[in-house]
């Protein structure tokens, strides 16, 4: 079940040599994500690489912390995720689970982590419920959530004059949540929703729905779906000349790797929100270059970046508390401000929400692109204090 990446560094020797006073702590990190499915590229092996980099950059060994990283494939299924998480906690001595894309899997791991009192640092999943009704004292939601994406993309698009929206929504809980959140934002910003079509999930042919969107007179078509559905929608939108026809496409959950798969020819002009892009500043570029060297030349996604930053912050808390007691470590993580090269400075809120800036990007045209992985131009920054759902609106029981 667990791919043991024997990453135990010669901790004892290191401790003796460096002569630090810290008592030796051994930590086991489980990277649980999609390794073969639709999210394998945006999380997958890259997240393991990111976690390893965090351990290295933190110099764990020198600090007397032995770190072992294990990983497994949850196949985007909540039952598989829950089985693995259970077994990791019960049998394999895993202390912290990181990444876990796919909302259903994340919610499952969220539950088990609380039940077993361990630590869960989510980077891959979108559902804002993790810090809303389902919030847990044992969970940190690091990278993004649907509220942030909807808000970023929705408000920015309306501000840019795209007032009339048409939603192409995957007909299941996640898609509906995305649509609902975005609708609220659009309407708050003075836009209107002129139509919605709920497509079966998963779907392969979206032409019929796109045609309905096209004839709706909307300024922008919001894609409230994910993964393969989004890719196919964008592909077919380009085929039907939607963007040439003057309508904009807003991907509500699109990742760098999706753009990579689609190619700029198809994806150009798409507007999307992310919390990290490799080509933002020297810090991100330097780190991403190191990442790419270890990962077949692929640039990191924001999910992988979130895994790095999350693991780093966790290790800092372990170091600070001198142990790995989950309650103490969680308290420390929330107390300490976060700081890393990728997300800059930030905080972790009471409900587990990691707070940082979000960015609105537009996908470049093939002409604008300088080379491989040069895909985004930054349109706007959504400051940290506006990027995420206000603490009191999430219905998180931890927040009184």
């Amino acid at each position, binding site marked *: *079940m*667990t*791919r043991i990446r024997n990453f135990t560094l010669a901790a004892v020797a290191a401790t003796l040599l460096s002569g630090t006073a810290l008592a030796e702590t051994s930590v086991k990190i489980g990277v649980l994500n999609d*390794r*073969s499915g639709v999210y394998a590229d945006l999380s997958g092996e890259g997240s393991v690489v990111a976690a390893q980099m965090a351990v290295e950059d933190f110099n764990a060994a020198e600090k007397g912390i032995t770190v072992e990283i294990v990983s*497994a*494939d949850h196949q985007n*299924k*909540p*039952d*598989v995720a*829950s*089985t*693995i998480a*259970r*077994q990791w906690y*019960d*049998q394999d001595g895993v202390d912290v689970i990181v990444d876990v894309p*796919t*909302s*259903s899997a994340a*919610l*499952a791991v969220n*539950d088990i982590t609380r039940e077993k009192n361990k630590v869960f640092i989510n980077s891959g999943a979108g*559902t804002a419920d993790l810090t809303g009704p389902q919030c847990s004292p044992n969970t940190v939601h690091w990278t993004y959530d649907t509220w942030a994406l909807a808000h970023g993309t929705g408000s920015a698009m309306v501000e840019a004059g795209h007032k009339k929206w048409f939603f192409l929504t995957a*007909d*299941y*809980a*996640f898609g*509906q949540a995305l649509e609902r959140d975005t609708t609220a934002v659009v309407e708050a910003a003075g836009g209107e929703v002129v139509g919605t079509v709920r497509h*079966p*999930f998963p779907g392969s042919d979206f032409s019929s729905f796109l045609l309905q969107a096209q004839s709706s007179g909307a300024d922008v078509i919001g894609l409230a779906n994910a993964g393969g559905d989004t890719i196919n929608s964008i592909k077919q939108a380009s085929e039907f000349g939607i963007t040439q026809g003057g309508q904009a496409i807003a991907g509500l959950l699109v990742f760098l790797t999706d753009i990579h798969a689609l190619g700029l020819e198809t994806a150009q002009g798409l507007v999307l929100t992310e919390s990290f892009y490799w080509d933002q500043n020297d810090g991100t570029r330097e780190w991403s270059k190191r990442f790419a060297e270890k990962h077949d030349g692929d640039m990191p996604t924001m999910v992988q970046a979130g895994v790095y930053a999350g693991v780093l912050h966790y290790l800092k808390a372990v170091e600070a508390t001198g142990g790995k007691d989950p309650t103490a470590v969680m308290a420390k993580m929330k107390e300490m401000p976060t700081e890393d090269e990728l997300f800059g400075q930030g905080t972790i809120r009471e409900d587990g929400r990691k707070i940082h800036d979000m960015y609105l990007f537009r996908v470049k045209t093939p002409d604008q692109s300088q080379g491989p992985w040069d895909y985004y131009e930054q349109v706007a920054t959504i400051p940290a204090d506006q990027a995420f759902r206000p603490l009191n609106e999430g219905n998180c029981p931890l927040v009184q």
Partner: protein
Amino acid sequence: MMAAETRNARTEVAAPALTAPAGAMGMPRHHLLIFVGLLALGLIGPFVLYPVFLMKVMCFALFACAFNLLLGYGGLLSFGHAAYFGSASYVSAYAAKAWGLTPELAILLGTATAAVLGLVFGALAIRRQGIYFAMVTLAFAQMVYFFSVQAPFTGGEDGIQSVPRGHLFGLIDLGPDRSLYFLVLAITFFGLLLIYRIIHSPFGQVLKAIRDNEPRSVSLGYRTNQYKLAVFVLSATLAGLAGATKALVFQLASLTDVYWTMSGEVVLMTLLGGMGTVFGPIVGAAVVVGMQNYLATLGAWVTIIQGVIFVVSVLLFREGIIGVLGRWLKKPL
């Protein structure tokens, strides 16, 4: 219809004495011994292996045995048994979580749902035979799948999560894995004994006759469609029992349980263990679940291995593990 060849191969095997030496419950002694052995394994199991894993094996063993009742003894290959397994899992999860039903009631409700679904789909599906029957059951299962994706109560792709295990009869806390384990063991064992009894009941006799030669059964005055429907419903119900129990074990009901690959998996378990044998599906389930558990690191290779097992079983190994074993021991298992 199904497995005619397999069974022909077995005819030389099965030469039970006129009155088989009967142990308790009218079982031949070697069957009784196996049941006792299984029970012993079940009791020792959680002290040796991870109990949650064992519970999963048991749920799937029951599922596979229920499926085998239909395929191995009814001669009907359903390619949509996930529908009953999964819908029961959803209903019991929802009943336990949203209505706060006690676990035994939740399981009962889930099982009853599967029974009703089995009755409706079965009544339609038995109008076709052979490959058509398989395809029709598959298509019905897809309808259940789409319904599960879209119905609000199933939670779409999130599934129904954090299902409370609750207190059995309102008394015994099932939270700890161990206490739940023994409930699951009891349910599984009850299910297996019931299936055994069905196979060896007057009804089971007629069933085997219909499987062997339907026109002849008709000419003897049996309304064969009613028997086929009855076994379909029984099989769906027991599959539902397995699904409902699984929902409590994992505190989760999800789309995986109703997806068509689940229907394929149960066929694989049965085929691998030995269809038409009493104990084969248990072994098949243990092997398949164990493989999924311990080979999970191999990623897509698990699917490939499963596919290869399918192909090999069909080409070379149609009797399955227990079927072969039974031939060696010259005793039907």
